[in-house]
């Protein structure tokens, strides 16, 4: 893949300022920029290869939530079960969709970029200019990650009827790190197929998506899950892989670094390495194989990190 094509897979910073701000973008390490069509020429002259994006282009993109955690005194607890705003389910449901992170509050740009990258989403970022530096660091990290385009790993199938209620169920499945594949009809290759409106999953259960996600988790059982995360309730993973390898994308929505995150992957896996935003390449610590799974500790997780692991022995 050429560098240009590779860059095109990254989320694009939407930047309305004139090309006189080019030095600050370059200093931050931003290489890909989307600009209003009227500013295209000046940005080209400034040495960028801008993507022209007009208001109409932006308007057709689906708006995303600013990723992060929210204080919800009535529904969530900061230390027990934080309320996480995440967009993974949208990307998984419509992988060919076009998205925009509209007016991201300060402090969210890097996580938004990582989130879009982790799911391979076509996303535009409208950021607070104060985040330029942190976004630049994240983009630099993403560009340097070893290429690894693998299909999603799924532990269950969900029959997607396209409905809004199912969307919220998918959201809760993502937030609980329950990896699914959306299908048009039940897939016999999965032990668990979720189809709303059936006797097992009555439509009324979609009204309590969190409870339904928990029911699905317990049907699947924790032992049968591809991945478990210990040490945080604010980390959401996407797992991709094939017979040869596995890549874990780990997104930390908690807003602060997590020290000593413990990961468990099903199956005995002989090694692996991690690439952490802000830290770089790190070894997996305190690795052990126990009860049919491989466990290791990541010393520190900022907004985003990936772990590449070899195949099951």
């Amino acid at each position, binding site marked *: 893949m050429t560098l240009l094509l590779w860059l095109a897979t990254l989320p694009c910073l939407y930047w309305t300022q004139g090309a006189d701000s080019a030095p600050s973008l370059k200093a931050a390490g931003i290489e890909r920029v989307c600009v209003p069509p009227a500013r295209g020429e000046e940005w080209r002259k400034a040495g960028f290869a801008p993507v022209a994006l007009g208001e109409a282009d932006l308007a057709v993109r689906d708006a995303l939530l600013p990723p992060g955690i929210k204080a919800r005194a009535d529904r969530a*607890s900061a*230390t*027990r079960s934080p309320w996480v705003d995440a967009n993974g389910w949208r990307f998984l449901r419509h992988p060919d969709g076009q998205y925009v992170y509209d007016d991201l509050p300060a402090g969210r740009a890097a996580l938004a970029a990582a989130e879009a990258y982790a799911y391979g989403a076509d996303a535009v970022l409208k950021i607070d200019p104060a985040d330029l530096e942190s976004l630049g660091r994240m983009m630099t990290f993403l560009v340097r990650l070893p290429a690894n385009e693998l299909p999603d790993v799924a532990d269950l199938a969900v029959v997607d009827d396209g409905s809004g209620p199912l969307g919220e169920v998918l959201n809760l499945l993502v937030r609980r790190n329950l990896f699914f594949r959306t299908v048009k009809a039940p897939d016999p290759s999965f032990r668990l197929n979720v189809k709303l409106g059936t006797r097992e999953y009555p439509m009324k259960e979609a009204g309590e998506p969190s409870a339904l996600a928990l029911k699905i*988790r317990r049907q699947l059982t924790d032992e049968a899950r591809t991945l478990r*995360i210990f040490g945080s*309730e604010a980390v959401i993973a996407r797992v991709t892989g094939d017979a040869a390898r596995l890549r874990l994308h780990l997104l930390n929505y908690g807003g602060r670094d997590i020290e*000593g995150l*413990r990961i468990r992957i099903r199956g005995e896996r002989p090694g692996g390495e991690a690439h952490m935003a802000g830290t770089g390449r790190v070894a997996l610590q305190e690795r*052990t194989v*126990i009860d049919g799974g491989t466990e290791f500790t990541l010393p520190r997780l900022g907004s985003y990190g990936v772990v590449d692991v070899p195949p099951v022995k």
Partner: protein
Amino acid sequence: MDRRSFVRLMAAAPFVPAVPDEAAPKLRIVTSYPPAARPGMPGPHPGRVIAVKSEKCVDTVTSAANAAVVREMMTRGMCALTGDRTAPEAWRRFFVPADVVGLKVNCGGHPWVVSAYEIVAEVIRQLMGVGIPPTQIYIYERFQNQMDTVNYAPHVPEGVQIVAAETANRRADNRGYDPATYVEADLFGEEDTRSNMMRLVSQRLTKIINIPNVKDHGATGATGCLKNIAYGSFSNVARTHHNGKSHTLSFVGTLASVEPLRSRTVLQIMDGLRGVWHAGPFAHTRRYVFYPKKIFFGTDPVAIDRLLLDIIDEKRKAEGAISIYDRSPRYLKVDDGAARDADPNVNIIIREPGHVEYAAKLGLGVADLAQIKVQDIEV
């Protein structure tokens, strides 16, 4: 370390829960540490409690403790517990110079009810008298910010280690916990189903002295020896109680029973100079502070906590507050901490004082009052 894994599946089968229609959660203990020949809990004195009282130990106007009186109470308590004539002899029953000793204090009741400086200082003085250097003595808690607030450093000799597992209660720092020693349970559908033991406990300390306070607790009914050593030595424990429901009935004792915590916790010294009879485990206001003016000694955490339940319940009764055993929804305002703080007849969770009896069923001590022998001493 050899990866010999002692895995036990536990359910509440041997115990009749207070609410029979609620299934007790399955708790899975994972540890590679075998028990000692005689585990520290209940230790050599099951069912035995020494209760030393002194009217002069604390000034109820200023809330200041009298260090000299506390020292005398400590001497009398330890000697009575072991049957020795002098304090050094008594302390040598439990410790040798090579020991690395942890003092599990309680800082959650700052500013009014925390493990008293005077008791902590006297414990350290006696340990040093045994020949243990200060660098082998650790005062520990889970949260560094609480330790910083209470600040034991000016009250103890230089070199004593003051450590915590996490910077604060933010669930962002797991480095201080042992990833291979934990209790696993899915209580409310939480994603992180593990509570890990502090590395300090599993990998550094050889002995532990538990120094809890006399406190009311919204989820357990009261918090003393068992909860202080259990919830103060493991991660991710706040998950056991919310939305009005508490799984502390079985969780407290189960955590305390995990090796090596159970074997290494050899001495219980419950600080009852001051206490909290409502809105615990916190003591943000002096409104609910009271003064039992006692220190309890023993090796059996269950026996001491069984007495504690009565102390808290009787004080509440005297203040016209509902019993810690009250399970009526009438008094329940789920997770409404402000209402609980304002009114002693508000529960935010159904309390589980039965956790003490449950711990007895796990072999941690004696909960039957008829079998508990209390020796009262007046100083």
